[in-house]
């Protein structure tokens, strides 16, 4: 698909956090050259500073690391660190960006990352990475797994720059990499489009003098606390408090520090992430303490509105005993032993309680320097200092050709940031899609060394994973143990096996010791196997002669309180892995041509936005809608909370989609069957109106099947005509129904069907939705008394000011507990029929009632019907609530374990229209990384038939969940021979066939019976 066009086939990405990294990888993978400009000496952003991530408690650095390394070594990504953008000139498609690259004073090509310089440098300052909890030198590598793993000299504190003397680093550096002659450089970079992801800063606590941060040693901010928890942090994950290095017994979190505070902090918005990160910190802190730790979170509203967050909260409460107190604390007394006494108001009385430590949940804001950057580039900022974005496109900045991702446009969590990054990548590339592949080069690997027949020479790396492993297991002894095993010719330990410098080391060791097997005893192959396989390829070996022993998830994490037994288990796992490694063989991979057409299932906003994005990039799309009309549930929305006109947008979108020649719309069409796999799907479509079935071929699938509204069976819904869902209410308002718009007293009840045991998730949009409806009603009839009964108001981000506006306009909010729900009955009040709503007002501490004329129920968002068969057709999982379950909740929010299938919109989880669009764009960006390729390589470890053994019993055919096996007959030596055949492209290597075959007639490559058997023998000690 190479083409010549006037547009520059490259994109400049500003900011090397997860957003910048993800956008860069997506772009580079779909045929664009990327310049990634980062202001600090290393990419990584905030994620490396975090300990675990919510709601899965994955180690943040661990899940980021593969991406960091991939980004660092990608041939088509040029990482420019220590640099900032000064100016952007030119037009979309042909920008010229001037970038100032500050001198690093270290030659990146010569440095080996040995670190002697930073060890011996005499000048110190507080480490930014560790938030001042530890020191760094004037020459420093910001953090252990930094990419690039090359130090930089901080001119501000370098003694040589101050006094003209020192240069100790230069004297000690064996590689002669220190270069004091370097000067700042001005680069002019040509780029077709630009993506800005400069990230965020946390609030400055100095305006909240009463919290005593930096005065009371045991009051820390949440980000400092992350560093204290982190295995790579200054405490190596052993949680002790700053004042006396004692293990804390009771920790309190204070929420909304700087957020939702228009008085002292002057911030009207909610920072969206703090509630869930506080829960995570509380849960993780308990895990980090060997002695019992009590944790208490002080909050106003608990805002666990993201996917999986509500369950996370419930688990924290029930399983981990995290205490939640609805109180805002501002009085802290520091006791003489360093404890802090917190005074708070607990519903009806003042309580004082002593804590060992206090964590301030500081919110997110935009630093002045980013605002200055926006100023230089002429970009508009919103009222809160964040980047203003387009109406329905939240990744388009106010200037064409410039896009944004991540917290630059508003506080958000990692999955949303990742989605925006992909969405921005998609937008940025659709602008220059004609120049795809014009500036990229293909990676060249050294020829593969033939190792079959060689005596195994196994190399073992045992990883400390900071203290994730090393803090529990005796890693040196494991290394010694590995060395003692047969065929192991090399064994060593490493702090982070996945770091960029260690990949270099692995390659060197392979060369030096002529290894022909590699074993890494570390974490999970799920996230890290691709990384090491790539390293093997770069070392000139087949990527499949690799084995991993998961001594983290299976040993150090689950048995953290029994270090010795855990080490014993790790020894077993290593022994088993070595036993298998002896028998592993190089595998070859099949390559398949890619069909460049996409199938998008669902004609709502998500589906249409995704389809349009793909079409803009030049791909043909089949868009399936099962009803006769495009638009989905958005047809029932009139305005967004922010006042944007949904119908106008929808009509425009429908018109665009209908006009687009590359999009084929199939209305009243459902899917009848699917075969094939990534790159080559075949899907049977049934046109319901005509009763016809036709088959289409496509390379990828996007599932955008949308959502529905829960039909309440509570609060007289369906029994009394005056009880509506809020969505119905909006229709009535639009129609001008006099009994609705003319009502005197109107009640809306939140969380109807959401956050209940049977639907343990927050529907995310209803708080904003009811407030929107209330504001609309107040606009029509300012005298109407409107009551919103809620459990927590979850107006996250920039929705918070609308909550304020609703209160300003007199909407009354009354909180209720799930144990004590409002009670609704139809009664006669005098000569009037009313709906009597009674509940307890927690502020008065007394029961109250409202004689309502109309009730609106904020009913849950549920996934649309038909998802089960789709899940089966495409072999993708659903979660317990029936939403599609993505591959990784943090870093792969639109993908599935099944390759080539993507998800977006309400099918994934309840979300707003803007969020759905972002996710649709993200899905199309991911889809484009496949559609843009001519061919894809299939996995090597898939099943293989042993024809001599197979007697054609066909036992394996049915169990195969991917329908990859067919039975056939052929003539052999004059007789009919029955056998099975595997469709290699469909096989996922799950092994069901191997498990059912009674004759050893089929096996999965890389998991042969003898290989597994060797492991079992090794486990049992049978040799």
């Amino acid at each position, binding site marked *: 698909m190479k083409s010549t066009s006037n547009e520059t086939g490259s994109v400049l990405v500003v900011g090397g956090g997860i957003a910048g990294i993800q956008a860069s990888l997506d772009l580079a993978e779909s045929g664009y050259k990327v310049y990634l400009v980062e202001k600090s000496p290393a990419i990584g952003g905030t994620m490396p500073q975090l300990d675990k991530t919510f709601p899965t408690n994955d180690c943040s650095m661990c899940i980021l690391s593969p991406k960091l390394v991939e980004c660092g070594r990608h041939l088509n990504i040029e990482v420019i660190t220590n640099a900032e953008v000064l100016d952007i000139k030119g037009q979309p498609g042909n920008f010229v960006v001037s970038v100032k690259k500050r001198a690093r004073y270290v030659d990146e090509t010569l440095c080996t990352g040995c670190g002697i310089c930073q060890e011996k440098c005499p000048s110190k300052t507080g480490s930014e990475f560790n938030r001042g909890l530890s020191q760094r030198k004037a020459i420093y590598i910001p953090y252990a797994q930094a990419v690039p793993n090359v130090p930089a000299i901080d001119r501000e504190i370098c003694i040589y720059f101050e006094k003209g003397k020192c240069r100790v680093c230069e004297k000690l550096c064996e590689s002669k990499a220190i270069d004091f002659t370097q000067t700042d450089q001005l680069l002019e970079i040509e780029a077709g489009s630009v993506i800005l992801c400069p990230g965020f800063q946390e609030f400055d606590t100095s305006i909240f003098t*009463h919290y005593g941060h930096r005065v009371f040693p045991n009051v820390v901010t949440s980000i400092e606390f992350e560093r204290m928890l982190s295995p790579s942090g200054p405490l190596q994950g052993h949680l002790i408090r700053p004042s006396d290095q004692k293990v804390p017994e009771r920790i309190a979190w204070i929420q*909304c520090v700087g957020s*939702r*505070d*228009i*008085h*002292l*902090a002057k911030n009207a918005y909610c920072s969206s992430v703090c509630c869930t990160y506080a829960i995570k910190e509380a849960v993780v802190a308990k895990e980090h303490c060997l002695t019992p730790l009590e944790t208490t979170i002080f909050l*106003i509203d608990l805002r666990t509105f993201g996917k999986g967050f509500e369950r996370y909260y419930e688990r924290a409460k029930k399983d981990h005993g995290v205490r939640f107190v*609805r*109180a*805002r*604390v*501002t*009085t802290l007394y520091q006791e003489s032993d360093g404890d802090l006494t917190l*005074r*708070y*108001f607990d519903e*009806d*009385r*003042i309580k004082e309680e002593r804590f060992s430590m206090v964590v301030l949940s500081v919110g997110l804001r935009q630093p002045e320097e980013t605002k200055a950057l926006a100023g230089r580039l002429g970009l508009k900022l919103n009222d809160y200092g964040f980047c203003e974005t387009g109406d329905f496109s939240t990744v388009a900045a106010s200037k064409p050709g410039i896009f944004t991702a991540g917290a630059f446009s508003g506080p958000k969590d990692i999955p949303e940031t990742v989605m925006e990054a992909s969405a921005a990548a998609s937008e940025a590339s659709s602008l220059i899609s004609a120049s795809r592949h014009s500036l990229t080069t293909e990676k060249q690997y050294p020829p593969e060394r033939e190792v079959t027949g060689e005596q195994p020479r196994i190399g073992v790396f045992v990883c400390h994973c900071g203290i994730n492993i090393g803090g529990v297991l005796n890693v040196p002894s494991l290394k010694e143990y590995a060395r003692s095993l047969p065929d192991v010719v090399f064994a060593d330990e490493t702090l982070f096996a996945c770091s960029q410098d260690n990949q270099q080391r692995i390659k060197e060791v392979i060369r030096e010791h002529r290894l022909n097997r590699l074993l890494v005893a570390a974490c999970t192959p799920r996230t890290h196997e691709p990384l090491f396989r790539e390293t093997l390829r770069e070392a000139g070996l087949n990527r499949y002669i690799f084995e991993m022993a998961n001594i983290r998830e299976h040993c150090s994490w689950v048995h953290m309180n029994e270090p010795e037994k855990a080490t014993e288990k790790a020894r077993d796992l290593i022994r088993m892995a070595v036993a298998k490694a002896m028998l592993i063989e190089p595998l070859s991979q099949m390559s398949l041509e890619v069909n460049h057409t996409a199938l998008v299932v669902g004609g709502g906003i998500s589906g249409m936005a995704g389809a349009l994005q793909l079409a803009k990039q030049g791909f043909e799309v089949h868009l399936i809608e099962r009803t006769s009309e495009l638009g989905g549930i958005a047809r029932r929305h009139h305005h967004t909370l922010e006042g944007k006109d949904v119908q106008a947008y929808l009509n425009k979108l429908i018109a665009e989609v209908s006009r687009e020649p590359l999009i084929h719309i199939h209305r009243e069409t459902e899917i009848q069957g699917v075969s094939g796999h990534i790159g080559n799907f075949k899907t049977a479509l049934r046109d319901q109106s005509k009763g016809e079935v036709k088959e289409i071929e496509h390379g990828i699938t996007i599932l955008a099947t949308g959502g529905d509204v829960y039909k309440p069976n509570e609060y007289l819904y369906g029994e009394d005509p005056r009880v509506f869902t809020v969505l119905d209410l909006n229709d009535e308002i639009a129609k001008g129904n006099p009994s609705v718009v003319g009502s*005197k*007293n109107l009640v809306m009840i939140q969380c109807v069907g959401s956050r209940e045991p049977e639907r343990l998730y927050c529907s995310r949009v209803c708080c904003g939705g009811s407030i929107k409806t209330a504001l609309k009603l107040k606009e029509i009839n300012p005298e109407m*008394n409107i*009551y919103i009964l809620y459990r927590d*108001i979850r107006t996250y981000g920039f929705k918070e000011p609308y*909550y*304020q506006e609703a*209160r*300003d*306009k*007199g909407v*009354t*909010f009354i*909180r209720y507990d799930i144990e004590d729900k409002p009670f609704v009955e139809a009664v006669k009040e005098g000569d009037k029929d009313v709906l009597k709503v*009674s509940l307890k*007002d927690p*502020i*008065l*501490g*007394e*029961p*109250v*009632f*409202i*004689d*309502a004329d109309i009730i609106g129920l904020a009913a849950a968002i549920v996934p649309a019907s038909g998802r089960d068969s789709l899940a089966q057709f495409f072999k993708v999982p659903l979660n317990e609530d029936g939403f599609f379950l993505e591959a990784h909740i943090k870093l792969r929010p639109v993908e599935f374990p099944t390759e080539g299938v993507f998800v977006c919109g309400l099918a994934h989880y309840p979300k707003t229209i803007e969020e759905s669009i972002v996710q649709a764009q993200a899905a199309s960006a991911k889809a484009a990384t496949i559609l843009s390729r001519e061919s894809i390589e299939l996995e090597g470890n898939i099943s293989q038939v042993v024809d001599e053994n197979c007697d054609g019993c066909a036992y394996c055919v049915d169990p195969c969940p991917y329908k990859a096996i067919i039975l056939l007959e052929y003539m052999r030596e004059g007789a009919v021979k029955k056998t099975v055949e595997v469709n290699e492209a469909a096989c996922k290597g799950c092994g069901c066939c191997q498990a059912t075959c009674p004759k050893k007639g089929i096996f999965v490559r890389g998991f042969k019976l003898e290989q597994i058997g060797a492991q079992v023998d090794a486990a049992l000690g049978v040799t």
Partner: protein
Amino acid sequence: MIDLTKANHHLWKEIMEEDAGDIRRCFNCGTCVSGCPAAEAETPLMIRRLVRMVLLGLEEKLLEDGTPWMCVTCTACEEMCPMGVKPFEVGLAIRRWQTRKDETYIPLSTTEVFQTGHTQPVEKVGELRRSLGLPEIPPTIAKFTELLKKFQAMLRETEIVKNNDYMFKE
């Protein structure tokens, strides 16, 4: 059971008069109470609850409530309220409203200030003052009868004195 429908939905305007602007911002976070000294009383001053009563329009309940008068006037609540509600001012406004509705609420000290210009008998401690080397009567309004007359004349024109003139004696 409190009937919210029948409450006085304009009470907040009545109580806050011209300064009604920000009281409706309250989102019940409780910060105001959390720093309030008087919240530790057996019958606590719960300023958030008072704000709530104003907003819900619970007129009768509020009129009976004596807790607004417990305020120590430290203004900590006003400092810390994230919504800029100025609960301290709300407390004072409730007191004023109560005095408007029911003159028994009028603090006697008010009449003293009217009568003497002061809450303390500054003119009656001459001996003590002289022993310290101070003039017997400090140079306040207590010393200048003419001024006190003017002061009273001025206050005569205020609503509170006009409406309750029987209480304010010269």
